[in-house]
């Protein structure tokens, strides 16, 4: 009997010991959690009563005094700023778009203009978005005024203004542009205004785009057709129409330029198809070179190493590299540095490589890769190119890393050092 009692006490003790561990750990966990518990400020759990500001419902009263009007405009602006700041996504929030339109309609065009001008110091993203909405509204109400007066010196959003106007009243906007005399600061942008809208229009109304062509001078017509070729819907019928329209020009060079632009567009997605098309053409060497460049221009961004390698393979060694090649090389080296360096390293010696290395020296040094740049400069055989490349590198390297430059200069061969010391 005693033994049974004793063993049951022992069992109880054992159980207690077993339970004690999880209980203690549980308590410890609670203590740790409790100490880490965030105690929010009371303000965090209280929301202000939501009241709708008055401006939204009040009609703009023409007879109100200047002071009343000022108060009204201020309330309206505050409301709009509040709406755009507090909408989870004002571009997708149709209720905010709706109220924005209703409120902006209550402002005069002069008030819209004044607000647009004074909002130049927009800081937050919501402020920037609202600012562009004010411009849109102004442009829709008075297109000519918005287009010619929206430039603030700091930025020139006249293209956005024109597009906003043309989106809601295409005919008025396009007709206005045909023979308007623009003020000097926008004058140079006339063709930009037009082409930027036409590039949108061409996606759904090719015919309407062509109706504007007779109102352009030869240069604008040609550049517009080329811009269309680079951006128009990617379908054979559109390409054929662009070719025909270009062929109307007395300048034959335009047709080859158009073909080149169409190839650029094609090579962006299908370089092989572009290549097949050029291979099947019967062309003078000069024109072939122009089309080859069109392919390179299209393919350079997506497949830089392959595109450049193929281009060089098709480029006759005796022909100088075209002027248009250099800006493209700048761009590729800036944005696709690694594959471009690999391609440049693989070039075979010769006049083409010398020319590319001369330019490459400067571009690679601009990326602070002076050792690589030095490799290119000293890899040039033609002294007429080697000298200038070394000179440029010396200046850039000395500026970016004087000690490194000194060491490099000391290690240069006799002839190079003499050339630099001239």
């Amino acid at each position, binding site marked *: 009997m005693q033994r049974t009692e004793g063993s049951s006490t022992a069992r109880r003790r054992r159980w207690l010991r077993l339970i004690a561990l999880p209980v203690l750990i549980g308590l410890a*966990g609670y203590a740790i959690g409790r100490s880490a518990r965030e105690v929010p400020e009371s303000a965090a759990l209280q929301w202000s009563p939501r009241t709708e500001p008055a401006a939204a419902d009040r009609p703009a009263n023409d007879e109100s005094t200047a002071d009343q009007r000022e108060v009204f405009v201020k309330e309206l602006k505050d409301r709009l700023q*509040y709406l755009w700041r507090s909408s989870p*996504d004002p571009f*997708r929030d*149709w209720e905010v778009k*709706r109220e924005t339109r209703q409120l902006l309609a209550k402002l005069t065009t002069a008030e819209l203009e004044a607000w647009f001008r004074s909002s130049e110091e927009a800081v937050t993203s919501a402020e920037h978005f609202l600012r562009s909405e004010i411009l849109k509204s102004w442009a829709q109400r008075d297109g000519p005024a918005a287009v010619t007066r929206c430039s603030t010196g700091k930025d020139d959003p006249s293209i956005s203004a024109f597009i906003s106007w043309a989106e809601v009243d295409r005919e008025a906007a396009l007709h206005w542009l045909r023979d308007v005399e623009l003020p000097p600061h926008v004058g140079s942008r006339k063709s930009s205004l037009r082409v930027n809208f036409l590039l949108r229009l061409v*996606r759904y109304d090719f015919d309407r785009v062509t109706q504007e062509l007779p109102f352009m001078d030869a240069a604008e017509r040609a550049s517009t057709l080329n811009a269309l070729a680079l951006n128009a819907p990617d379908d054979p019928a559109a390409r054929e129409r662009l070719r025909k329209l270009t062929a109307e020009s007395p300048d034959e060079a335009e047709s080859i330029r158009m073909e080149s632009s169409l190839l650029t567009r094609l090579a962006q997605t299908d370089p092989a198809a572009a290549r097949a098309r050029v291979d099947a053409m019967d062309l003078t060497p000069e024109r072939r070179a122009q089309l080859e460049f069109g392919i390179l221009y299209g393919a350079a961004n997506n497949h830089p190493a392959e595109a450049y390698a193929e281009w060089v393979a098709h480029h006759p060694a005796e022909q100088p590299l075209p002027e248009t090649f250099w800006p493209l090389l700048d761009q590729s080296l800036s944005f696709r540095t690694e594959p471009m360096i690999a391609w440049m390293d693989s070039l075979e010696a010769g006049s083409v490589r010398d020319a590319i290395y001369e330019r490459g020296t400067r571009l690679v040094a601009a990326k602070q890769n002076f050792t690589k740049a030095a490799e290119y400069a000293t890899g040039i055989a033609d002294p007429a190119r080697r000298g200038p490349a070394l000179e440029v590198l010396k200046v850039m390297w000395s500026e970016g890393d004087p000690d490194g430059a000194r060491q490099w200069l000391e290690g240069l061969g006799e002839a190079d050092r003499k050339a630099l010391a001239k």
Partner: protein
Amino acid sequence: MNFRGTAILLLVTACTGWLGYRAGIGPDQAEAMWAARDRPAATRQGLSKGGDRASARKSATALLQDFKARDPGCNNPLVQLEGWESVRAFTAEQCLEGLKVTGEEMDPTSRTPWAGMLYFRWAELDPDAAMERALRLPEGHNHDFAQSVLSAWFKNDPEAAYRWCKSEPKRAERLSGSNMMGAMLLSEPSQSAMAKATLLDKMTRYRVFGDAGTLAGRDTPEARQAFLQSLGKYGDEDRQLALKALLRSWGASEAREVLERWDEFGYHDPNPSFPEKDSILRRWGSREPEQALAWTEEIPQAAGQPQQLDIYKRWVDSDPEAAARWLEGRDNAGEYAALLVKQFHSATLKGTVSRSATQQVRQSREEAQRRHYQLWARQQPQAAAEWLNGIDTASATKIKGGEDATH
């Protein structure tokens, strides 16, 4: 104790430890925060059920076909807003019907505001279903619509939207969920918004503290001072965010005061290579170059030569004649000219001018460089000649060109 017993004991212990910890840490305060907010008094849900509106009688298909015909480029905001007047009274069934017309699975590069609008309306009525369908679309097509859904969801029921974000953190991040939460909080006065934001993630706090600071920077001096004092109760990161935004927006109207009082604000740049103080001075310099430059000379310890030169260089770009008038007759005109010539030259070599600038800007830069070289050569002929001798021949010829022409 046998192995099995030990394993069970350890498992039970781990469970109680975790449960204890959860109990200790308490409920998710952010959820409680959203829950404390009133739901919108009335949604427009009732409108469509009444069935007394034309849009409720006309089929969604016919309505949308009609609007789409009037907006073939999907770019006329007026037609779209007119469409919204109908769509905002749609039922969930009408939204689904409408989505058949708008081609939500079109090429993702062509934006379809009509489908986005239907998703927004649907999410006002049944966000779970709308989100599920948007996310069933292939990647790349679904993002725009899922964002429409989430924004309507946050607007109408932030508590539920927050819970969804918590259960789908990766998707919520891609859909800018934090930015949406931040915007919702910004419907509150700044102090309330900031207190709430401390319960949420870093991105939300970034939005809220940044916007609150910007607003305070434009406020009255008293309100601004009160705001600055209130920042003391927040963590360093949040405080610095608000402070940076405040100094920036205040500096846009009163740069001088901000710069002169700089040290009393206790601001630290998160990235020392881009000091905020320099940006404020630079922006002042773009607005009022003469005043900003005068100030840098009045208080020499406040800004160094690089900052002065930066203001001057921008001035040369924006208004070369006014800049030239200012420089003329100054004692250190030669020094300025030398620095400018060298900086333009370095930018030309690095290609930073040619890539970003238009032909017109390039030409006026070259012209400015020539003019400044002439000025330098007049004041410090030997130093100028030596420098010109040390640079590459092509650039030297270009810079000298103007000089030869004038002599």
